[in-house]
């Protein structure tokens, strides 16, 4: 690869956008059963939510169960923007696809920023807490957000917020999902990500090694919230109707179950979990009333038999990356010694994985 890095990434991005745009025509419902395309798009939204939650729960090890609250902030703020200014903004830009794309982009940005700010407000005080306490505080904040939404008349209060412009766009939903995945993937494979993982593995040790744990935790939380907000934006514009009820902690649990099912700390796992948990209820529709019972039984059985989730911490791209790195090294003529070192590092990584499976969230002796 002689191409500069940014150029290569730019090309990849353009190709992805092109492919998405092409698939958009297929999956928009014109050439496909609308029911299937609906499930497909809901899976895309679920992927955004699950992958973003995994950043804070899976990689940073901070057990947050208030994700639906940030989703709600993103959904409502963007919906308010779209209802009040969206149409006029699109009109001033010519009213065509471009105008609406800009209006939607602005709505997404607003939703993400608002949710990120909410994440900051919630995160700064509550991330001082650990484990169960953090879980229950985030849950509390999530509930408080719902109570407030129930009381804000400008967005419909308990009646729900209707009249939001409906955009069922495969392109948009999966673009956001892919951006989320790429962002989380790059964070996790950076110095920032290693700091986060060190916090998960042992917070005291991380702090002793000079990691500013509070700062990193808050940053991860804010990024995670902002992406949840973007997921909320997608949801708000998907059905054109919002109700505070749909953001109660049951929703948070749902997203949580997705990432646990797939494996905390595995991006591929979250994607798989998100798709599974969106498709599974549809597949179980025949047993409508037993659906949730089966669901919860599955969760308990999964925890008893495979507590690390279906995929544990395995990452699909790990092997690929290592191989590619090895290949680049061969090209720059550092052949045999490097290869053995790579082998070693892979071994070390698996060893660390095995250790971390037992140490995740474990209580220190008092």
């Amino acid at each position, binding site marked *: 690869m002689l191409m500069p890095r940014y150029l290569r990434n730019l090309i990849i991005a353009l190709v992805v956008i092109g492919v998405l745009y092409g698939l958009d025509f297929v999956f928009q419902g014109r050439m496909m059963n609308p029911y299937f395309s609906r499930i497909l798009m809901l899976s895309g939204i679920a992927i955004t939510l699950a992958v973003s939650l995994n950043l804070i729960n899976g990689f940073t090890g901070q*057990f947050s169960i208030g994700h639906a609250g940030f989703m709600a902030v993103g959904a409502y703020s963007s919906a308010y923007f779209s209802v009040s200014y969206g149409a006029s903004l699109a009109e001033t830009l010519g009213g065509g696809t471009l105008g609406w794309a800009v209006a939607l982009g602005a709505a997404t940005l607003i939703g993400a920023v608002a949710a990120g700010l909410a994440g900051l407000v919630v995160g700064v*005080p*509550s991330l*001082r*807490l650990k*484990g*169960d*306490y953090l*879980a*229950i*505080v985030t*849950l*509390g*904040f999530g*509930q*408080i957000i719902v*109570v*407030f939404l*129930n*009381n804000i008349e400008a967005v419909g209060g308990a009646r729900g917020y209707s009249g939001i412009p409906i955009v069922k766009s495969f392109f948009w939903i999966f673009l956001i999902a892919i951006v989320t995945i790429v962002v989380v993937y790059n964070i996790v494979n950076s110095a920032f990500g290693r700091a986060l993982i060190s916090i998960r593995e042992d917070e*005291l*040790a991380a702090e002793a090694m000079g990691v500013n744990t509070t700062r990193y935790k808050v940053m991860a939380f804010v990024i995670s919230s902002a992406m949840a907000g973007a997921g909320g934006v997608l949801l708000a514009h998907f059905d054109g109707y919002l109700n505070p009820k749909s953001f109660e902690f049951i929703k948070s*649990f749902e997203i*949580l179950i997705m990432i*646990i099912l797939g494996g*905390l700390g595995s991006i591929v796992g979250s994607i798989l979990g998100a798709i599974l948990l969106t498709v599974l209820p549809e597949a179980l529709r025949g047993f409508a*009333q*037993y659906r*949730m*019972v089966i*669901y*919860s*039984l599955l*969760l*308990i059985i999964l*925890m*008893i038999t495979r*507590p690390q989730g279906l995929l544990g911490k395995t990452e699909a791209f790990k092997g690929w990356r290592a191989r590619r790195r090895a290949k680049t090294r061969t090209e720059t003529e550092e052949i045999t010694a490097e290869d053995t070192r790579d082998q070693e590092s892979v071994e070390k990584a698996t060893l660390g994985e095995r250790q971390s499976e*037992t*140490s*995740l*969230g*474990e*209580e*220190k*002796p*008092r």
Partner: protein
Amino acid sequence: MSTFLQQLINGVSLGAIYSLIALGYTMVYGVLKLINFAHGDVYMVGAFMGYYLANGLGVRGAQALGMSADGLLARGLLGSGAMEPSLITALAVMLLAMAICAALGVIIERFAYRPVRKYSRLTALITAIGVSLLLENGGQVVFGADPKFFPELFKKRNIELFGGASINSADIIVLVIALALMIGLQLVVFRTKTGRAMRAVSFNLQSAKLMGINTDRIIAFTFALGSALAAAAGVLVAIRIPRIDPLMGILVGLKAFVAAVLGGIGNIPGAMLGGLLIGVTETMVVGYLSPTYKDAVAFAILILILLFRPSGLLGSVSQEKV
């Protein structure tokens, strides 16, 4: 003034129920360091057991017996006729519901929590969420999703107090029974051998095991005790407000957990105090501010307490060690 007094009475009555549930949270947290999310749903099951028992053996049975056999026994046991109808029925219903839920608690512990005890606490927490969802959704299938109305176990009467406030006889019963149960719990925990073992386990599970305590049995006993108290709370709530549904345990359970944290989790008197404080604050907010913010109160208190005194009002501060 009368509003204040009235809200105080309502608050204490509500708070007593929160306290009973909070005790279960606090005891389980004490021995296992686990937030038993399913606890609120055990309370729901308790209310439904009370509902079926009351319909099965209580009110209808009493009416049938009272009409056919006018014997002293029927009157005394089931309370028909002109006397205050059937406090004894109410008690019998409550005790039976408590027994059933104690068994339920032991089953949950045995089949869901014990297998995951060897894993991390996070796994246990998620399992607890799973059990909670199972009880809620299973409840909707078994009991039906729409609300049911609890039969009147005894005649309710309003007693006028000074200053225009009034107290319902149901509230008095709730308070008396709750108080009796809490005293009973104190006796069990501080005056019996099993109670001492419980305290030992909550102090240090490993050492307790080394001292020859059968920790599995003690943990199961803790679950039985906590679940029985939750069931009592369920029946008492149903006596006060007769509307019950399979999802009634979610919010109440969370608030009771907040009460346990407020008092200092793992601390039994703390749970009682926390429950009362949450109950009173909540009714005060309803009375003086707005009922719509009722459900945010407990969580706002929780956040404040965790930020300023994370070990709770009566809890002891523990130092974090490597």
